[in-house]
């Protein structure tokens, strides 16, 4: 292609082309290096020949071209967070967490020389973009290191049971203060907004034992309730039974007295009449009773007392009656 076309119109066209190309390239470079954009979430730090000149807010800005002025955009409005002991793989409607554990971050010693597994997050915001950019190297690592050392320090100062429960808020608060002090000592230009403890659990190997204490508490309550249940089942019943016994006794008593009164009333009545004519009454009563007693009796043997030598033969086996 080139070989065929170069011969006739070489000189002038080439010069013109070069000038045009150079001009286009120069203006493209000029334009592309003269403007920069700053997002609402950011501030931009502008350096002139490497030296800090100004901080620009959101919008479109002009800068000296060809790298004379450089801009660094820093997200100063965004709250950033770091996770310790766990990782979010994908945040979203259904956040996915990494299954792995990070013992090198989360395992720590408590003040009573026990071991505990702590997961937490920190939230921070860059509040001085210039300091953030130029005062410290490897800033994310620095933040993580300090956060780890803060939590380690505070957990190491407390008993495991406090760490697992009541001391959470005080650890969070003190960690925030400690981190802010330390990091501002480095002039990192950030502010820790919050430290949030997440999962605090005993290490894997002893979790079962910790849970067993909870289970034991449940067992204890269950046993106590069983005792109460038996008590509640039996005692009201016993009270009722006691009532029954007493009522029965009352009934017996009443019956006994009533029967006595009845007997006596009849006796008295009869006696009154008896007194008026004792002999007759006595005999009458005797005959009446004998009659009543013998009325229904069958096969009764009657022996004459004069027949002294008669020995009555009685069929002792079954039928009543002896000789006939």
């Amino acid at each position: 292609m080139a070989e065929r076309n170069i011969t006739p119109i070489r000189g002038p066209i080439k010069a013109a082309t070069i000038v045009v190309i150079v001009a286009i390239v120069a203006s493209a470079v000029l334009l592309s290096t003269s403007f920069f954009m700053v997002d609402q979430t950011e501030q931009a730090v502008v350096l002139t020949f490497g030296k800090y000149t100004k901080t620009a807010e959101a919008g479109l800005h002009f800068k000296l071209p060809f790298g004379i002025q450089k801009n660094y955009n820093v997200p100063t409005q965004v709250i950033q967070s770091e996770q310790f002991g766990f990782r979010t793989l994908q945040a979203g409607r259904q956040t996915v967490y990494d299954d792995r554990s990070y013992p090198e971050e989360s395992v720590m010693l408590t003040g009573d020389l026990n071991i505990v597994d702590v997961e937490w997050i920190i939230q921070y915001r860059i509040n001085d973009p210039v300091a953030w950019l130029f005062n410290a190297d490897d800033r994310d690592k620095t933040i993580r290191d300090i956060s780890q050392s803060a939590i380690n320090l505070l957990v190491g100062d407390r008993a495991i049971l406090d760490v697992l429960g009541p001391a959470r808020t005080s650890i969070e608060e003190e960690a925030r203060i400690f981190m802010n002090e330390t990091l501002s000592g480095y002039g990192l230009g950030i502010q820790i907004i919050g430290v949030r403890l997440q999962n605090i659990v005993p290490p894997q190997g002893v979790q079962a034992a910790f849970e067993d204490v909870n289970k034991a508490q449940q067992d204890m309550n269950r046993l106590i309730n069983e005792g109460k249940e038996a008590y509640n089942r039996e005692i009201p019943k016993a009270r009722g039974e006691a009532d029954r016994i007493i009522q029965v006794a009352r009934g017996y008593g009443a019956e006994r007295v009533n029967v006595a009164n009845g007997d006596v009333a009849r006796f008295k009545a009869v006696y009154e009449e008896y007194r008026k004519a004792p002999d007759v009454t006595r005999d009458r009563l005797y005959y009446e009773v004998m009659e009543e007693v013998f009325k229904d009796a069958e096969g009764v043997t009657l022996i004459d007392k004069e027949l002294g030598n008669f020995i009555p033969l009685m069929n002792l086996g079954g039928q009543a009656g002896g000789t006939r």
Partner: protein
Amino acid sequence: MKKLIAGLVILVVLVVTLLLMGPFYVLDEGQQALVLRFGEVQKIETEAGLKFKSPFLDNVVVYSKKVLPWDGEAQRIPTKEQQFIWVDVTARWRIIDPKVFYSSLTTMDRAFGKLDDVIDGAVRTVVTSNYLREAVRNTNGILQVDAAEAFDTGDAEGAEALQELALAEVSYERIDKGRRVLAQEMLEIARQLAPEYGIEIIDIIPRQIRYSDELTESVYKRMIAERSQIAQAFRSFGEGKKAEWLGKLENEQRSILSKAYETAEGIKGSADAQATRIYAEAYGRDRAFFDFWRALESYKQTLPKFDKTLSTDMDYFKFMYSARGR
């Protein structure tokens, strides 16, 4: 025309090359530079901006002015009581005298190597000469906190006794220094060496302290034993309470029933007494008639069931042989 363009191009290339080679260079914020002429330090630049140097003669070495992190490997170190723990420390440092830094270390890699030696040594020295608790704890705050474990014992009576039972006797040893003081000691040891290299160590901070694996195992065992001791206390307390309830149950059951028996017998007794009195009072009026009456009443009840053989001797039969009677 051709010559002009060629000349222009050459000129541009020359100027660009010259500018690239020097005499100008840019020093960014957060950087510092040494200007060397044939290896000899001419100038130290610490302020950012456009800087000048002699082209071809001068060589510029740029160092960071920022706070730099140092992160060593975790070390397995015995404490004063010979317990092995893993200590992982980090440090912050910066180059404060680039000239000394250049002549003693020159490169960052060598600086990190030197820091490894200095800081690891300092950490080892301090940890081995202190007890474990000094490295773990920072204050004596744990002594003040009432570490009573709040158990949900419900409203069971005697719960205080259980609390005492379940809680292992905890007494913490007082610490004299604490972690931050140890860190400070490490820093002081490390700092003694640092000026020779033109660097300043800003701080040394233990990032993580944990037990060695063998020790972890035995700590787990201890923790488990401690927990199961508490669990046992709960269960046994529950058993005890249950037994108490069952005992109370039997006690009350027996008391209630026997009380009822007592009352019942009392009632029966007084009724019997009353009946006796009624009978005695009535029957006592005529002893002879009572005898007769009662005997007849009794015969009515008992005689019909007897297997009877009667004798004519009875009064009842007195008219059997004679109308006049006997």
